[in-house]
């Protein structure tokens, strides 16, 4: 079996202090196909950044930059 690498928070790596909700392309990476927020255990974000990210995503959703629920083709 492959051993997983320990992930480091990407926002910490890039040295970002603030996550902007206007940058929806970046936020979309932390959403599932359905539009849910990816949990910390999967994304590897640190606590502070995950909280900021959640706030940014919620603001972006409110302004219709990101969908609340994305369509799933049946």
């Amino acid at each position, binding site marked *: 079996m*492959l051993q*997983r*690498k320990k992930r480091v928070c*990407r926002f910490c*790596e*890039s*040295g*970002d*202090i*603030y996550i*902007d909700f206007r*940058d929806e*392309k*970046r936020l979309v*990476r932390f959403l599932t196909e359905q539009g849910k927020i990816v949990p910390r255990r999967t994304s590897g974000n640190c606590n502070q950044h995950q909280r900021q990210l959640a706030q940014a995503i919620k*603001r972006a*959703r*409110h*302004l*219709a*930059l*990101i*969908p*609340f629920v994305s369509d799933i083709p049946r």
Partner: protein
Amino acid sequence: MENQYSTIFVVDISQNPDEVDTVSSRIQQLIEDHGGVIKKIDRWGKRRLAYSINKNTHGFYVEIEFTANSRLNIPRILEGEYRLNDRVLRFLSYTITKKELIQRSINSGKAKAKKLEQAEKEIEKQPVVEKEAKIPASEEPIQADAPVESENLEKPESSEPEKKSEEVESIEEEKSSEEEKSSEEEKTFDEEKKPEKVEEESSEEENKNEKIEN
């Protein structure tokens, strides 16, 4: 305390595109009348909404940044105006934190450095992309002879997302400095994930085959 605020609103322009000016001028007037100082007006332009609001698929985004004393409570006054106005589909007012201001100054510094790098990369990139495109083509026949399934599946899969993300990179680089980083990060993210899935599938297949043989 003097605060820096940002307010963003989405205007319905399905019936009258001039509505944007009337709404934004009204908001600006409100801010100034109540003692705020407008710093920046940013028109994002007409955008597609991620979901329909009141059966509208598009909206016009306007962002206004201003400073005001927190006692004046301008965001609250604006909220009243937004709620009364039928043409405003969505709005968001918030205080800009120190962190955001620091991040902006960092980004503007990065953007300048990126411009120089871009010019260099664009010259370098064109030949590099061609080379990489050729390599997987030559590898394919060799892989077809190899007996192990998991290796066959891994290599073409892992090489494809690389190429795609590179193409995406070259487009995104021009837009902003942040996006390039995140796309690079995504590359590693994809590479880690996909091969694992493939292996799981292939191992399952092997198990099935063993069962059948038994």
